[in-house]
């Protein structure tokens, strides 16, 4: 028992560090986290109230609670699979613990307790404000708030047991598709796009509701679909039944039955499978890619550099997500954001700012993918010496990296522009012009970000030599990108507005929008020249200083 407690303490210290008032950095971090939790709590309370009001108005108060529990349930199962694989099966950690004079089951229990305590805290932070918001908006039974701990317990344990059972098959499946890099990217793009679409649709409904533009947010058919779907949400509808006291005894009995059954399966798993799985090393088995038929291909220096850069990103789930997935999800993200922005902008100001608004939205999303170039040198990590030893100039090496960024941004921007033209958010000519401006500003920002990294690379890579945590250059690149996006976007809207309202410009040759595009093109050109020059000047000198 004492060993279990010590191991549990070790697990917490390993993940959260040791709190000490003397450690100023730790104190600041704790205060920061506390402020974040409070702000998050208040925001969640407000957003939940709006959401519940919107659904309650349609007679969907019960259904939204079922959906909410379902969403939480799915999130906990999925995140549980990931954390279970890491905490219970990760080889490095277990190998170290197994060397200590402790029993295998003590390691298992301490790690399981860590996961459960973590889950309870997370659920508490999310569920409590949501339930309070619900009770503020909807008329609930007296027992409602008292039953929250019971609901919390079930929503922690049931997903936990399920994710424990699914962790091993998930690891086996992951190993099977791990090296189908293209497929992994497609799956991630679909996942991100679907989640973003659902989020934006919900957000759009809330915006419509808040602006009070329509009496009913949902069509009657949609309301019926919601009701039907909610009636099939097993076992999560029992959570709602329990707290809302709709057949509470049946709900409680079924939830307990499910929990006990899953517990039994988990005991079987621990007794018969856990240790075998650890010994078989499933978590990392097959983690290295093996090419079936390796062969030699002679390539030019530039194309071999470009290929290496591409493979380094493609074969890393972390980098693929940070770059390829976000770039390829961009069209859908821009489309939905622009749709809402246009709706708000059109109603509040008028049609004249639509093109400027679209420019702003596209530039902001571009900034996110451009920030990847701010780690061009940093990502080399321990391999940085290669860049100095090989008989290739640094300009050529950076040009290869830049070519990859350019290629990906052209693909993402072209797809985005095509989608918004197709959906008639903007016209064809304006769309093509906008694409040119965005591409040019993107190139400028990419060069600026690359130069930032050449000046001050941070080789603090972790894990498998990858950049997983925040990086100063990435933050600076995002900051600069946002600033440029906002300035140019607002300027574009302002120019259109002023030209239309106060200046009698000749619209026979060019329309107001086209005049605005000419002016913005000129500003972008100046910015571009500045970025190109600042990239070129002293590039080699700064690079040579890196050791």
């Amino acid at each position, binding site marked *: 028992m004492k060993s279990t407690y010590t191991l549990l303490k070790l697990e917490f210290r390993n993940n959260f560090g040791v709190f000490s008032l003397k450690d100023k950095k730790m104190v600041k971090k704790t205060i920061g986290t506390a402020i974040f939790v409070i702000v998050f709590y208040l925001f969640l309370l407000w957003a939940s109230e709006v959401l519940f009001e919107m659904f309650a108005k349609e007679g969907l108060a019960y259904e939204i609670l079922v959906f909410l529990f379902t969403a939480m349930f799915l999130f906990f199962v999925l995140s549980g699979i990931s954390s279970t694989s890491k905490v219970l099966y990760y080889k490095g950690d277990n190998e170290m613990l197994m060397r200590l004079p402790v029993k295998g089951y003590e390691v298992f229990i301490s790690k399981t307790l860590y996961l459960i305590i973590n889950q309870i805290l997370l659920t508490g932070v999310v569920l409590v404000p949501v339930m309070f918001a619900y009770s503020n908006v909807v008329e609930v039974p007296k027992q409602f708030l008292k039953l929250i701990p019971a609901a919390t317990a079930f929503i922690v344990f049931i997903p936990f047991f399920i994710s424990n059972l699914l962790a091993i098959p998930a690891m086996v499946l992951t190993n099977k598709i791990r090296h189908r890099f293209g497929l992994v990217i497609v799956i991630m793009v679909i996942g991100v796009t679907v989640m973003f679409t659902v989020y934006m649709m919900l957000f759009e409904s809330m915006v419509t509701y808040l602006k009070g533009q329509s009496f009913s947010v949902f069509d009657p058919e949609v309301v019926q679909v919601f009701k039907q779907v909610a009636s099939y949400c097993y076992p999560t509808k029992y959570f709602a039944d329990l707290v809302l006291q709709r057949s509470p005894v049946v709900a409680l009995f079924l939830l307990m039955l499910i929990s006990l059954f899953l517990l039994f399966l988990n005991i079987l798993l621990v007794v018969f499978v856990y240790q075998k799985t650890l010994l078989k090393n499933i978590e990392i088995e097959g983690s290295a890619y093996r*090419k079936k038929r*390796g062969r030699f291909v002679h390539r030019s220096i530039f194309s071999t550099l470009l290929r290496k850069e591409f493979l380094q990103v493609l074969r890393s789930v972390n980098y693929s997500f940070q770059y390829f997935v976000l770039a390829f999800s961009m069209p859908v993200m821009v489309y939905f954001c622009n749709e809402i922005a246009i709706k708000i902008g059109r109603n509040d100001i008028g049609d004249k700012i639509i093109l400027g608004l679209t420019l702003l939205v596209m530039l902001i999303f571009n900034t996110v993918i451009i920030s990847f170039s701010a780690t061009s040198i940093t990502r080399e990590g321990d391999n940085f010496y290669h860049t*100095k030893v090989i008989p290739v100039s640094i300009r050529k090496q950076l040009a290869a990296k830049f070519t990859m960024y350019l290629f990906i941004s052209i693909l993402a921007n072209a797809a985005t522009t095509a989608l918004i033209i197709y959906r008639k958010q903007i016209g064809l000519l304006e769309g093509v012009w906008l694409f040119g401006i965005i591409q040019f500003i993107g190139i400028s920002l990419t060069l600026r970000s690359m130069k930032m990294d050449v000046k001050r690379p941070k080789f603090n890579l972790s894990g498998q030599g990858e950049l997983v945590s925040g990086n100063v250059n990435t933050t600076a690149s995002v900051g600069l990108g946002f600033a440029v996006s906002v300035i140019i976007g607002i300027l574009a809207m302002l120019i259109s507005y002023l030209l239309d309202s106060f200046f009698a410009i000749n619209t026979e040759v060019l329309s107001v929008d086209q005049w605005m595009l000419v002016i913005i093109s000129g500003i972008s050109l100046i910015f571009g020249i500045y970025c190109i020059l600042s990239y070129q000047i002293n590039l080699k000198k700064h690079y040579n200083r890196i050791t």
Partner: protein
Amino acid sequence: MLEIKNLYKKYLNSERFAVENLSLELKEGEIFGFLGKNGAGKSTTLKCVTGIYPFNGGSIKVCGKDIREESIDAKLNMGYVPDNHSVYEKLTGREYINYIADLYRVSKFDRMEHFTRFVRMFRLSHAVDTQIKSYSHGMKQKICIIAALIHQPRLWVLDEPMMGLDPQSMVEIISYMREHCKQGNTVFFSSHNLDLVAKLCDRAAIIHEGKLHDIIDLTVKGNKETLEEDFLSITREEEEG
């Protein structure tokens, strides 16, 4: 083959020179050992030679090409094996060697011939098409050595080359170093292993606190036997002094 003249290297924010007024000349066809304690300046010198570190003063020429002025030409004549065996681990062994061969402009025929030979020599055939991240410490060291040799460099520079290698591979490397030098090339390596240097090298230099203290001709009778004594007397004298 390699000419280092009055080399000075100081790290940023450091008070003293890591390498101070170091001059060396390596001839064609010799194996040259570079000895020194930890922090003596061995790796720093090698990193200046290979172009990894900029230096404050002096000059370095590889096959007559200045590493600062004609860096590309100088680097084309050099192969470098680092002490930390860092390689692009997302690539397979073959992809990595192919990448290096492309950069050093090695013809397809030559790279296949050299690759096949080295892979067989280091018994890596089973792993060449697997990602390097799954390689052991020794296997990574071997793939670094193959990468450094794929273009048959005139000057082969190695930083602590025997670390992490199995005895059989060590024997193969020693044998290949000799063969490489017989073809008129030069090997320049740093080591802590006095026995290895005595057994293998034609000459050895001893560096201590950034300064070159002695260059010993190991082909002269009796010098191999006294190498350890010489090394210890130089490093001990300094400490006592």
